[in-house]
């Protein structure tokens, strides 16, 4: 599928690579000055690859092997404040440990780029995929872009630097890619050349940085009469990102011959009565299922959310216009609440002619979401699903299958 959309020129660069390797290859070409990370499955292969590149002299980064994710993010913070381009990657518990620093990085307006190899959070301990980790830092001021496949993950990192470092944005950007499903899968990917990346991504020009030549204070505290304004400016920067994300994707297309960005992607949404909404690698399975369901005569489509923060409210509302039923597939759970992604979708639709929106909790802790799961979701939706459904729930496991 990826191959067909390539320009023939870029076919020359196509290789079959593990997702983590693909990400490492593009991060290398983005020339970060400082990389700092702490190992956690399934992020490890990304940083191991980068460490090897530094060890082989292919990459001239300072690679700081820290003692925790808290320090990994803090090293990036200090380095970015000094005017360096930085990179880190983590997952799950690591992101939780980083979360305090992520809020700080965002508030200090430092354009750190990080990868989240999405994995659930303990307990129970599980190394497998869902989106609980990224969504946990939803409100930190970190731009979050979700990748569907390895090519998109790789391409999004290049765009992430451009977005983060734009002086109208200056916020950290997190590329979220499904742990194992993408990080450990070999796919054909096109890795751009160094020259191509250099032509697209200029060297980092910090707006402010720490130097004795022009002393400034960063990270001062403020009183209630000023705090809101700082948050408002961060929010405005997110709004700017909303317009920049598609522009950068266009620019990327001009340079690299493929469009791997943007806020959302609509798949077979013309005349759709039912729409799936999802993020990440699950989208590929949904596309296949949509194709099958279409062949069977169902008017069904898909809206893929690529930018989760800033949330593309307008684009989502437009894409779902005229749809009767929406199935939001959540790879995370707000325990005691109703859908995390669904809350954004519903709010995008508020005040309009609204479809019925069902929330489907699926794929937690790495459970497969199969075509059958998706067909079940379709059926439930057509029956008029309740507020929140748990997909493939096995009640016999908890001795609750009798009554």
């Amino acid at each position, binding site marked *: 599928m990826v191959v067909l959309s390539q320009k023939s020129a870029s076919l020359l660069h196509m290789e079959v690579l593990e997702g983590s390797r693909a990400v490492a290859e593009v991060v290398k070409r983005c020339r970060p*000055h*400082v990389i700092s990370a702490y190992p956690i499955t399934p992020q490890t292969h990304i940083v191991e690859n980068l460490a090897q590149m530094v060890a082989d002299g292919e990459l001239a980064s300072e690679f700081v092997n820290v003692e925790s994710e808290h320090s990994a993010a803090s090293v990036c913070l200090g380095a970015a404040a000094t005017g360096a381009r930085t990179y880190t990657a983590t997952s799950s518990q690591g992101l939780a440990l980083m979360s305090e620093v992520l809020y*700080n990085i965002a508030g200090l307006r430092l354009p750190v780029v990080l990868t989240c190899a999405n994995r659930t959070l303990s307990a129970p301990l599980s190394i497998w995929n869902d989106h609980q980790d990224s969504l946990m830092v939803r409100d930190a001021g970190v731009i979050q872009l979700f990748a569907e496949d390895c090519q998109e993950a790789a391409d999004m990192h290049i765009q992430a630097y451009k977005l983060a470092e734009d002086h109208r944005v200056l916020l950290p950007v997190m590329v979220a890619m499904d742990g194992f499903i993408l990080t450990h899968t070999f796919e054909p990917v096109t890795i751009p050349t160094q020259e191509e990346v250099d032509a697209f991504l200029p060297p980092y020009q910090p707006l402010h940085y720490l*130097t*004795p030549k*022009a002393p400034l204070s960063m990270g001062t505290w403020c009183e209630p009469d000023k705090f809101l304004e700082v948050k408002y400016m961060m929010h405005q920067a997110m709004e700017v990102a909303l317009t920049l994300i598609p522009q950068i994707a266009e620019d990327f297309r001009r340079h690299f011959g493929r469009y791997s960005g943007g806020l959302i992607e609509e798949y077979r949404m013309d005349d759709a009565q039912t729409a799936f909404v999802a993020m990440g690698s699950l989208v590929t399975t949904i596309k296949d299922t949509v194709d099958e369901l279409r062949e069977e005569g169902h008017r069904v489509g898909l809206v893929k959310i690529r930018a989760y923060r800033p949330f593309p409210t307008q684009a989502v509302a437009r894409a779902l216009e005229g749809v009767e039923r929406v199935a939001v597939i959540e790879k995370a759970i707000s325990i005691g609440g109703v859908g995390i992604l669904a809350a954004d979708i519903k709010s995008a639709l508020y005040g309009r002619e609204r479809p019925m929106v069902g929330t489907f909790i699926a794929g937690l802790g790495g459970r497969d979401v199969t075509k059958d799961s998706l067909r079940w979701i379709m059926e439930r939706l057509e029956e008029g699903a309740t507020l929140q459904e748990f997909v493939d729930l096995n009640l016999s496991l908890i001795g609750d299958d009798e009554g």
Partner: protein
Amino acid sequence: MNTPLDRAEPLIAPGHSACVGCGEVLGARLCLDAAGKDVIVTGATGCLEITTSRYPESSWRVPWIHSLFENTAAVAAGIEAALKALGRQDEAKVIAHGGDGATADIGLQALSGMLERGHDVLYICFDNEAYMNTGVQRSSLTPVGARTMTTPPGRQSWGEVIPKKNMPAIVAAHGVPYVAVASVGYPQDLQKKMKKALAVRGPKYLQVHVPCPLGWAFDTSLTIKLAQLAVQTALYPLYELENGTVTEVRKVGRRLPVEEYLKPQGRFRHLLRPGAEKELALIQALADANAQRFGYPPLSSVTVNK
């Protein structure tokens, strides 16, 4: 490479909001003036940060960044790594500062990582022996017997019971080439150690004793006097550890009994009432052990002025 000390313009500007008699902000000023302008400083959440950096004002006449409570050493490591990567390592020396809580408690892991990796960073711990910024709670550098809000003396307690953590030894155990203990009571000694530290490549650690009039409950005119008494009683000996070995100890003319130091401080008042003899003896024993280790003269008997 440091610019000469300009007395008219201390690198921490006046106008900050530290308490009258604050030992910490004085210590920071002495340290920074010894370091000179060509530094990049990062500081932990705590009194020093709060009193010097209320937006839109700042007392820092050098580049300075505050991030969080426990990550100062890691932020400093990032600054140092960036300077290296950008080919700017000759531009500035990197200094990190934290209170005793930031250093010995919540930030100990990040500090250990920075030391172990050998970053070219000077870490300064301003030791006022409790979490002052949050209203005087104990830290692992709170001394035995001290009253804090979380180690209150009561019907079954004499205050803090756990001896002060030996931070200089912990730092030295990382193979750090230069570790020094200093005090605002001895400004020249402090500034000499700052300069010596900054001349060393790699990680170095300076722990500065900084009395806190509010947290220790003493008269604001006594900051320097108390800092000196801590040294003279051998409760806070000043020394240098070079490559793990004690190389210098600040000499005292005569050694004083610990009561001299405890008496002016409200945080120890409960120990000077009848019934606390055992606790008092314990503190004297701690001082005696220090005195022996660092070669102090025998205890002088002084007449206690009422």
